[in-house]
């Protein structure tokens, strides 16, 4: 409804200003009281803006595609196999990796909040955190995938993993045809974030 949209925009404008003010006040209070080190805030933001993102997960995927032993380890004990590449810690302490095949397509959601494997994928995108994806991925996954331009045959079973606990899920997507002999580095370049959430497929031309 245009009515709704109008209201929503209007709402948003005024709200951000108010929110912005509150956050500033909160920050200065927390710093003044000595609860928070302002320099720590900058390091926290920089870490996720610059260092921890889906490139980490892409390296895990590329290694699994090129090293059968690593892949077997990854599917058996994801936390250890991922830690061996240096990706550990907060929101990825206990990892599970699920392999997509021609017959089974896995995808990940957190219907109750927005749990996401930070060490391998960084912080989640807005759509992953918003109501439409959280509401519909468990009940209408094929229609959700269609919104990401992914259409799978009815013979492919779709498994949706709802992250209700502290286990964090990452998908090992299918390696695209025509990439034989590519280096791990080349392969990592074509692995997308969405393919590791399960809402995308890896394309050779990506």
């Amino acid at each position, binding site marked *: 409804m245009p009515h709704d949209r109008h209201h929503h925009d209007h709402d948003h404008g005024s709200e951000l200003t108010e929110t912005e003010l509150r956050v500033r006040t909160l920050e200065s209070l927390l710093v003044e*009281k000595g609860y928070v080190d302002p*320099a720590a805030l900058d390091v926290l933001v920089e870490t996720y803006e610059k260092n921890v993102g889906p490139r980490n997960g892409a390296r895990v995927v590329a290694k699994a595609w090129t090293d059968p032993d690593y892949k077997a380890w990854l599917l058996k004990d994801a936390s250890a196999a991922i830690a061996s590449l240096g990706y550990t810690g*907060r929101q990825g302490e206990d990892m599970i990796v699920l392999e997509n095949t021609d017959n089974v397509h896995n995808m990940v959601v957190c219907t109750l*909040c927005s749990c996401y494997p930070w060490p391998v994928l960084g912080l989640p995108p807005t*759509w992953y955190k918003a109501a439409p994806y959280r509401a519909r991925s468990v009940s209408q996954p094929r229609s959700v995938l269609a*919104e990401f331009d992914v259409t799978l045959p009815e013979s492919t*079973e779709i498994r949706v993993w709802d*992250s209700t606990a502290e286990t964090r899920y990452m998908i090992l997507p299918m390696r695209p045809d025509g990439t034989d002999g590519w280096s791990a580095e080349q392969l990592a370049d074509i692995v997308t974030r969405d393919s590791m959430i399960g809402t995308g497929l890896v394309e050779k031309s990506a």
Partner: protein
Amino acid sequence: MNGAHDLGGGHGHGPIAPDPNEPLFHAGWERKAFSLTLAMGFTGQWNIDQARFARESMAPGRYLETTYYEHWLHGLEVLLAERALVSEAEIQAAESIGETKPLPRILNAADVLPALQKGGSAKRDESTAGQPKFQPGAHVTARNINPPTHTRVPRYVRGRTGVIDRVHGVFVFPDTHSKTGDERPQWLYAVRFEGTELWGPDAEVGACVYVDLWDDYLDPA
């Protein structure tokens, strides 16, 4: 609690609208809401399940009309107020009025990376929980509980029957952890529910859902 956060199966929320050019943060205040929440989380004044409950407690309409980092900000304010660390009056006055509580642990800049890399697993030694009640292949029914307090069994699986897919190990139990801090570690399982069991004739073809559920959420089917 049966709050607006429990979104699984809902209709009417509109399209998903992924934005391929989205920045990690959309405004300066989002960076602050994120980093303040993490920094205060490291002080150990609350645990993650208490933080989730604080976010869920937002009025349902407001929760749905606001964004992720607004939920975080709400949660942070609730937790700070409950623990008498920052009061609403102080935020209104933009001034530290009350006493400042000494905190045993503060996150310094130098500690950020080690702290993030260490994380804090909710996994506990298996000896703390006895034998798992279920093995892979067992049929289980999710209990129909409706506590007004924090829980991680979504409404859409309550009373539904599935099959144990795998045993994850022993993990902190969110319900008691949120309510009193009691970890009550117990076995956690991935349970597979067929789409038709969850949604009846309206399920999509060949789709199923795996949900992580603890012993205290499950009965033998």
